[in-house]
């Protein structure tokens, strides 16, 4: 039998710390994933809102341009032209806003992908490697306690 040079109480303390750590962290890993889902939902809602606003601006611009074309056949109206240029600016602004949200959606997906890799490795460690380490320590503790009993019986 391999002789173990260790203190049983120190090993027991280490094993308890590892078990507590595994228990505390197992739910925490899922919370990061939950935060990603919430952020995705919020960004999609903002993108949807930005799309709706863009469509509205485009429809108003189109209507304005049609009205301007019709007016061009009659007396020229500079006021109508000014209204259309304001709406054109609103369309450009709405496009930029939508593009801005899309860029952030992509940025979040990139970071989420990176996070999932780290979270998966950590979860694997919590679910398989760490229990094995705890079992290994328990085997050692059991061996040390058995050796102590033999020593005590022999003395």
């Amino acid at each position: 039998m391999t002789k173990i040079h260790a203190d049983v109480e120190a090993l027991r303390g280490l094993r308890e710390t590892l078990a507590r750590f595994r228990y505390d962290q197992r739910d925490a890993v899922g919370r990061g994933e939950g935060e990603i889902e919430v952020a995705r939902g919020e960004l999609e809602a903002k993108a949807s809102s930005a799309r709706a606003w863009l469509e509205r601006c485009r429809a108003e611009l189109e209507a304005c341009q049609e009205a301007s074309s019709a007016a061009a056949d009659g007396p020229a109206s500079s006021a109508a032209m000014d209204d259309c240029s304001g709406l054109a600016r609103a369309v450009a602004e709405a496009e930029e806003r939508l593009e801005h949200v899309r860029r952030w959606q992509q940025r979040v997906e990139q970071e989420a992908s990176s996070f999932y890799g780290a979270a998966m490795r950590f979860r694997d460690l919590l679910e398989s490697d760490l229990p094995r380490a705890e079992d290994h320590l328990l085997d050692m503790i059991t061996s040390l306690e058995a050796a102590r009993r033999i020593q005590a019986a022999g003395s």
Partner: protein
Amino acid sequence: MTPARPDDDGDYQLGLLDAAWEQAAQHWRDDMARDFERYHWAPLRQEFRSYLDALARLREVLGAAERETGF
């Protein structure tokens, strides 16, 4: 008991692990201890640190996304 949030107190959690290992290592100095450190302890510490760093970056980006798109 509410599980600790690793992103909120990751360094504290890491400190607890380190303290437990240092305590055990003071009384455990053989080949098995070295193997345990190499195959169990070091990977645990490394993956936890990587996870904490990834989580910190993620939360930074999620916060920025919320702020920057708050029209």
